[in-house]
């Protein structure tokens, strides 16, 4: 079943097209990655799904229902973790979660239980009575998540949930995302950290300048851009290496020598297993191998290839 469908969605701010004719769909049970650089239009898309922004064109459906028509139904089934931490500093962690969950019609004991459950889930049970102003960045991020899940939505949308936090909190959040998914939630995960998206997502859409430029599983995306892999061999000295002899090995297409670092970069077809032969070449020629790395393409390179730019400003 399709949990989310965006059909030809366009959003303009004045003349500026922030989201440009985007069509995508997310199936039940997926962890869908929404990857794109700053200003790509990720948050704008999410704000439209949340009903904060109006669409200029197109249609958004949640669980098969058009959000502009059966608003309440769609809204009850979504939980949104905004990019900016959206909580009330004057209220305790518990009161924050309780207030937002209360907007979904939960009351009394049931409400309190859900709030505890959500705080427990993000590891903030012992901070329930504390005020967020005393929280670390990571704790605030986790509270931000708790506020979106207490009403047990079917679809959880996380907009860059790990911005500006320490690696430990980041891992915790990534684990939580997987756990939510195992518990049956469909997840949309927005980020410009390709490592994160690569790590947790089952399917990915890459968005740039408001347009979806590629979509698919990790393997599919990587195969769009390349059918080769790189093997980097570090040696004590490159002097003895003959690129032409290396090229004779089955599958090898290109050989580059980096004289400064004493590294030989061997590019070869992805479907030929020639690592044994390459290693044997170095042994036979008495060249000492210091290191050996197989460089498979990652989403960063996918993005770089598709757009000619890096995901993040370096």
């Amino acid at each position, binding site marked *: 079943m399709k949990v989310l469908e965006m059909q030809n969605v366009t959003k303009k701010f004045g003349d500026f097209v922030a989201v440009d004719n985007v069509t995508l769909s997310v199936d039940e049970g997926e962890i869908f990655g929404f990857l794109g650089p700053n200003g790509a239009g990720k948050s704008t898309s999410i704000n439209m799904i949340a009903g904060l922004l109006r669409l200029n064109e197109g249609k958004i459906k949640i669980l098969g229902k058009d959000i502009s028509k059966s608003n309440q139904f769609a809204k009850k089934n979504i939980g949104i973790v*905004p990019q*900016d931490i*959206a909580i009330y500093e*004057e*209220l305790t962690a518990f009161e924050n979660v309780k207030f937002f969950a209360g*907007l*979904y019609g939960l009351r009394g004991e049931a409400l309190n239980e859900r709030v505890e459950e959500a705080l427990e889930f993000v590891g903030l049970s012992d901070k329930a009575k504390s005020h967020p102003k005393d929280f670390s960045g990571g704790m605030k991020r986790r509270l931000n998540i708790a506020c*979106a899940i207490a009403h047990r939505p079917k679809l959880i949308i996380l907009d860059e949930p790990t911005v500006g936090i320490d690696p430990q909190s980041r891992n915790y959040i990534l684990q939580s995302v997987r756990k939510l998914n195992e518990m049956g939630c469909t997840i949309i995960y927005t980020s410009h950290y390709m490592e994160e998206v690569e790590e947790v997502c089952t399917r990915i859409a890459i968005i740039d300048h408001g347009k979806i430029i590629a979509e698919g599983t990790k393997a599919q995306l990587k195969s769009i851009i390349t059918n080769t892999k790189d093997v980097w061999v570090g040696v004590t000295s490159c002097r003895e290496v003959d690129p032409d002899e290396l090229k004779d090995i089955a599958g090898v297409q290109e050989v580059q020598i980096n004289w400064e670092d004493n590294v030989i970069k061997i590019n070869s077809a992805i479907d030929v297993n020639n690592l044994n032969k390459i290693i044997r070449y170095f042994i036979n020629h008495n060249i000492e191998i210091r290191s050996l790395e197989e460089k498979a393409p990652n989403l960063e390179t996918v993005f770089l290839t598709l757009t000619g730019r890096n995901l993040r400003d370096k």
Partner: protein
Amino acid sequence: MKTLSIATNEIKQSLSNKRTLVFLLAFPICLMLILGLALSNAFNSSIKIEDFRVLYLVKGNTEVEQAFQSFIKEVKKNGVQFTRTNDEIDAKKAVKENKYVGLVEVTDQGIQLYENNANAIKGSLLKGMLKTFADKVNLATTVAKTDPGKVQDVLADSGQNNYVQETSINSYKEPHAMDYYAVAMTNLAAFFGMMSAVYLIRGERQRKTDIRLSAAPISKMEILSGKVLGGILTNVLCMLIIVLVSKWVFKASWGDHLAVVFLVLLSEVILAVSLGVGISYMIKTDNTVNAITMVFVQVAAFFGGSYFPIDDVDSFGGIFTRLSPLYWANNAINKVIYLNDMTPAVHTMMWNLGIAVLFLLISVISMRRREGL
């Protein structure tokens, strides 16, 4: 129900926000204490009954005159000077020029009062005395106001004869400094509600919680009404605390008609909150909104008698004073407390609520048009 959770949340939030507490509680109470104590001497002599001069005119031979003469003698003991005149036109001019509090015409039909709007407190006082007198001798009274150029009969067609309930001429009361500032500062605090009301919706946008509210299954109207209700209740709560502190700690007088006073204050809070929300929808940038509300509140306070009493509207702030909601409220509440005169209170409430409705409408319409909140 969800409207209520939003309202409750707003109250909780405001009451745990130090800025709110300083503005809505600490500031007015401190000012009340400072002004009330510092000006206590200046105050007791500020409204002198010796300056109370009235003209009267007797038309024809009437039995009323005898009773009226004894009334004049009676009030003279209290410092009210009645002077007889025969020239109606000159007399009216003198009243207009504020040389006299009023001109009383004694005729067969009863007594008629021309008064000058500017001298509100003494005017009401005079009305009260005449009413008491008329009740005693069973006369019909009419009161007319001389607005420049136009003479208008006020009491005659309202047919209302019981609006002054003084039973004795001697029961004339006047506010001490603390009494005055208790009323003035409570009104000011109620009006300060405008400055926090500006942030009812704007604050959600700034905190980015607007996206959560938008994503939740509630309508914009529920959000707006919850927020406005929360704002009103928070301010009412602060206002009640100020009233109680002034009453029990500073021993200020709030008169015998607490319910009417409360209603005036309530209508003022509603006005302030609605103005705040409306303005926040009408103006785009935060800085402009802040500047405008700040200037508006301070001008209204200055000309509205928040920092010092206004004896004579025209010679002081004129149009600014007349347009200041704080003047309406101060005037209305003081009249209720000291003269048992409910008319200004009713008018103030009607104006407050009317303007509030207008600004709420503006907010609702802008909110509907806007994306998001």
